């Protein structure tokens, strides 16, 4: 067990929108019943004023910290969540839930459709970031928390933090969007489209109805490889792999000669074991649809009292710093008191998960100074 760990944790489940209720989606369609997988760390205080919602990125899940019984790998943001860490579980009550559309316990395309007894597959409605947040709001209501101290997340998690601020401004004190954007640029949509096409071009995808035959492994693995390239930086790839060979000489065959090739293959094929191909399609689409630019953000509010901490990383070319600066510009127009930091890093988009020293220093200080007594 690692030092400063929250220890052994268990994913829990919350179900709402049971008949006759449904969750109204942005697409006009409805969803119900809806299950959210979630985990919590730390203790909710009696005033319920120390709750922080952690939002995960594209392939994340509810397991943000600690260890599942028998596992050796910790949750995806374990470096940031725990006693004495940036999100200090001695002080705060941390909640992390899997997004709807996902495949880690929350309702998504791979979950069983009650009406048919088989997975929804591609009949699952398209979901948006706003739908994800609406579902999270139900979970927060279930806890009886009126005001979250903070909503925090990187990448797609940052989109959710912004969506919370925009849709439920009365229900949050602070928001920390990290390495994210108000909307995807054509370049970001283009990467996602190539990723989706890669999955859908695999005959094993079977127009989305593959569940009784197994995943479209090749398509999903290559899709993830593309993703991994965009998460790193030129510099971090140089540092991590350079042109090093897996074996000492070139094979003069089409195999993975270079370490970088081996790495991508390993990450790609491992991903197939843990992530549903259709969920990848749904979630990338949700990110592409997300747009809180201009008047879409806090449409009815002239000034907001929410305190923001916006963080970008200099080497992140997938969500470049200028996109975070666009968030800051929009916040200025809403007269929001904002802290923005463009952190030095070499790790590209992955920095928010890996380069945690400065990130920790910032978030810790920010939260300490914005906590309600």
């Amino acid at each position, binding site marked *: 067990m690692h030092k400063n760990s929250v220890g052994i944790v268990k994913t829990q489940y919350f179900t709402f929108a049971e008949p006759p209720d449904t969750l109204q989606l942005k697409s006009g369609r409805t969803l119900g019943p809806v299950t959210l997988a979630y985990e919590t760390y730390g203790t909710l205080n009696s005033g319920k004023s120390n709750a922080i919602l952690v939002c995960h990125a594209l392939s994340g899940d509810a397991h943000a910290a600690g260890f599942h019984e028998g596992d050796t790998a910790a949750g995806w943001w374990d470096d940031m969540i725990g006693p004495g860490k940036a999100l200090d579980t001695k002080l705060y009550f941390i909640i992390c839930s899997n997004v709807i559309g996902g495949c880690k316990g929350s309702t998504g395309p791979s979950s069983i459709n009650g009406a048919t007894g088989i997975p929804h597959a591609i009949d699952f409605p398209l979901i948006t970031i706003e739908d994800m947040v609406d579902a999270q709001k139900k979970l927060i209501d279930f806890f009886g928390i009126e005001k979250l101290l903070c909503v925090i997340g990187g990448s797609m998690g940052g989109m959710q933090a912004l969506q919370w601020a925009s849709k439920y401004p009365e229900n949050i004190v602070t928001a920390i969007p990290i390495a994210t954007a108000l909307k995807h640029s054509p370049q970001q949509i283009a990467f996602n489209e190539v990723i989706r096409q890669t999955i859908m071009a695999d005959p094993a995808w079977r127009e989305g109805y593959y569940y009784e035959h197994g995943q479209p492994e090749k398509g999903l693995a290559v899709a993830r490889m593309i993703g991994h390239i965009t998460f790193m930086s030129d510099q971090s790839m140089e540092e991590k792999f350079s042109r090093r060979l897996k074996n000492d000489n070139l094979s003069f065959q089409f195999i993975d000669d270079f370490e970088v090739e081996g790495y991508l293959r390993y990450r790609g094929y491992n991903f197939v074991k843990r992530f549903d191909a259709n969920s990848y399609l749904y979630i990338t689409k949700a990110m592409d649809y997300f747009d809180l630019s201009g008047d879409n953000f806090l449409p009815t509010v002239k000034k907001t009292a929410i305190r923001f901490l916006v963080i970008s990383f200099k080497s992140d070319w997938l969500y470049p710093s200028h996109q975070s600066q666009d968030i800051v510009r929009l916040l*200025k*127009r809403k*007269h929001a008191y*904002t802290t*923005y930091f463009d952190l*030095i890093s070499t790790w590209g988009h992955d920095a928010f998960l890996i380069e945690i020293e400065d990130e920790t220093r910032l978030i810790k*200080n920010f939260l*300490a100074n914005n906590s309600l007594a």
Partner: protein
Amino acid sequence: MKLDHQIIARIITEGAHVLDLGCGNGELLAVLEKEKNALVQGIELNDEQMHICVERGLTVLQGDIESGLVDYPDQSFDYIILNQIMQEIKAADFVIAESLRVGKRVIVGFPNFAHIKARLTLLFAGKTPINEALPYYWFETPNIRFLTIRDFTDYCLKKNIHIEQACYLGKSKPVHILPNLLALNAVFVITKGGAQSA
């Protein structure tokens, strides 16, 4: 506390909304927050200074001064502080105009290049003046322009900027006579000229 910070802290009203452009390590903003319950926002470029600001619990944006004001709506703040930055920024005229748009009042503090010692150094020694307010050699100075109290008041007259208050600072106490000759630093409170100057 630095004399110019004392002067500025005295000017700022209780509970005011304050934006400090080029806030450095947030020393002044921390004073304003503590002593005046001011709601403060800083803008700073330097990484380490930024970290110190956040440690102090200040709200601070990383960015440059020239583009820092553009997106704020008119009259967003009670005070915009431009302290010890006039001599370092490129688009001084633009920054002052933008400050007058975004702030109800603008506080401008700068070293007075026409201080008697500076004049004598230039006249008799033929050297670039170095003193308490201008402590740098030519090859290391961040200053890209030098201005005097007279320069600034002439500028305000020309631009129809109302000078609401002017404070002149010596080494350790205020200067009351012949400021352009005897003051090392000046702190002005300015507003847009015309109807608003009352």
